């Protein structure tokens, strides 16, 4: 007889019934994990809170900037994912590399870019992380190792794998983190790159932010294996799941996998189960979400939760928390002022960023310019 692979029973009965609904089972299970504060120093914990609050406030202001038409294009926020973002970034060294999707403002800040430069990018100014050429979806900073936010779903995964290949090639000790969403695990690039990373033993940690939604499509509607970390098995790669609402747990898991990758070169996959508090992007009213679901996302608020935890644990008191909140408010105000005061790119620079090496006969024509 032939060998048979394990076949786990799908959570729900068929594809039809999974449409438009969300199976809540796994989610509740995640929320019940005991959130300890771990062995982090009080200072570290307070800093996590500060960073999470900063990202929260930043994103709220980004949304406001959009309404004021200061920010354009698509604008995807990290609201609800602050614990994940800060936990992940705390696991990286400055010299480690990060590739993300288009939902990366918080990552940019937590990886070490000045909030003002992040806001300036949203405002499309020359002082922005990408000189205003990239916008919300395309932040970049060589200094802190943010090697790009990418707007094509899954596009960052092969790139991140290649960066890890370069590290391996040179024998460096940096690690690459590749962030993506749950919906992204269904695209071909995910499969090809996971296989390549495992096959060649490349130091990259693939992080899947499972916020249960890709735009309006639930994980159950899009992934035949909805426990996404289990997909690592198809590549003999280590996979695990962590409560993305728990900054300490995220830091611990990510730190462990990053250090393992640093030491052994082995890749891993980490699934952080999280919430998207608002619509897919600033303009999405998210009408497709059920009332309970939206309510659950609001309730899970990782910033508020962490705040209470720190206060109950005596790491912070109400005044201390309020002080941090005032400070980040000031930081965000300063970021907005910086962005607002920064210059718009000069149209005369339009052709300066097409090629790194100038060559003969490059076309530098404006629409009304004749060819000859």
């Amino acid at each position, binding site marked *: 007889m032939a060998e048979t692979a394990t076949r786990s029973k799908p959570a729900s009965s068929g594809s039809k019934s999974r449409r438009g609904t969300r199976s809540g089972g796994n989610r509740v299970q995640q929320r019940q994990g005991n959130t300890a504060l771990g062995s982090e120093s009080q200072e570290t914990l307070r800093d996590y809170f500060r960073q999470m609050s900063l990202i929260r406030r930043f994103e709220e202001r980004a949304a406001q900037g959009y309404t004021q038409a200061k920010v354009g294009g698509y604008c995807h926020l990290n609201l609800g994912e602050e614990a994940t973002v800060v936990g992940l970034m705390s696991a990286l060294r400055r010299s480690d590399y990060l590739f993300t999707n288009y939902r990366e403002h918080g990552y940019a800040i937590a990886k070490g870019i000045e909030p003002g430069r992040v806001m300036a990018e949203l405002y*499309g100014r020359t002082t922005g992380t990408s000189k*205003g050429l990239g916008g919300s979806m395309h932040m970049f900073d060589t200094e802190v190792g943010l090697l790009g936010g990418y707007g094509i779903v899954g596009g960052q995964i092969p790139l991140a794998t290649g960066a890890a290949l370069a590290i391996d090639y040179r024998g460096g000790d940096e690690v690459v983190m590749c962030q993506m969403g749950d919906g992204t695990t269904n*695209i071909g690039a995910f499969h090809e790159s996971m296989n390549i990373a495992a096959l060649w033993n490349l130091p990259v940690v693939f992080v899947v932010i499972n916020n249960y939604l890709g735009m*309006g*499509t639930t994980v159950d509607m899009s992934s035949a294996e909805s426990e996404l970390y289990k997909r690592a098995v198809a590549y003999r790669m280590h996979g695990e799941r962590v409560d993305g609402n728990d900054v300490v747990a995220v830091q611990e898991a990510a730190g462990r996998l990053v250090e393992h990758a640093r030491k052994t070169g082995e890749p891993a996959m980490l699934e952080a189960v999280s919430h998207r508090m608002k619509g897919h992007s600033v303009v999405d009213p998210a009408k497709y979400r059920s009332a309970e679901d939206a309510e659950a996302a609001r309730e899970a608020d990782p910033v508020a939760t962490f705040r209470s935890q720190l206060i109950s644990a005596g790491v912070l008191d109400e005044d201390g928390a309020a002080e941090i909140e005032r400070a980040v408010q000031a930081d965000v105000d300063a970021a907005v002022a910086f962005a607002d005061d920064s210059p718009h790119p000069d149209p005369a620079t339009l052709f300066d960023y097409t090629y790194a090496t100038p060559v003969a006969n490059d076309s*530098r024509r404006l629409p009304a310019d004749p060819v000859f």
Partner: protein
Amino acid sequence: MAVITYRQALHDTLREEMLSDENVFLIGEEIGVFEGSYKITAGLLEEFGEKRVRDTPIAEEGFVGAAVGAAMLGLRPVVELMTINFSLLALDQIVNHAAKIYGMFGGQSSAPMVLRTPGGGGQQLGATHSQNIELYYAFVPGLKVVAPSTPADARALLKASLADNDPVLFLENLALYNTKGEVPEDAPPAEIGKAGVTRVGSDITIIGYSRMATVATQVADQLSEEGVSAEVIDLRSLRPLDRETLVESVRKTGCAVIAEDDWLTYGVGAEIAASISDGAFDYLDAPVRRVAAAEVPLPYAKPLERAALPSAESLNTAVRQTLEAVGHRR
């Protein structure tokens, strides 16, 4: 005859076709529960159910290919590719498979399907989300490519595309969805492969398709106030290409300006210019002029984006310069 938006025309036509042929079904990302990224399919999941309106995982190669396979068995899939930029991920299934099924196997099967997808920049979506790469499809024998610019054409060409037994790339444009126009409800399907003369004129021919066809009309209207009689041609079909209509017009007017949203070098306008320069060789009084996007990865910042994209102003300038070159007097 109702005045409705381009979006509404697409929506209504899809609905009608679904009502009249149960082999027609919709497939794509976020078309059901989310009601479509640009809301073309709003309400259709509720009306037709999950069998007819199929939300897919993010897997362009996979679901486009699945539509091709379903079409080979006689269904009539209408695929929505959220924007033409993402279609690159499905290009192999479209170019190497859908386009080849009929020819490569000696005519035994075909892939009757419609691939709806919007192009277009100008929304500050940045370099990867603002491209106009219809050229990639227009170049390929075995595919047909249509590009309606008005609500009426959207309806008539969608009907024609669904009646066709070949894969049709149906190009929409982000900037057109909210534009309005009269849509005769009993108009017959359009004829694929035919351009339309949307303004008759005698001084100059302006050629566009999709958004730039509407800009061309706008510029023609501006110029007519100044006594210039511009003929406007809306290509409507990029493949096959209606060279006859183009050349006939230029033989009359003696000069032409092409308005296109894609990049100039190797863009769709190159073929138009080459064809006119050839077919109207003895009639041309000035070189064919092209107005197209600056050849850069489109920047996010508004002042740069604005500078890079063709507009009524740049087209107007080029038309005036061409008229000057041929010695036209207003």
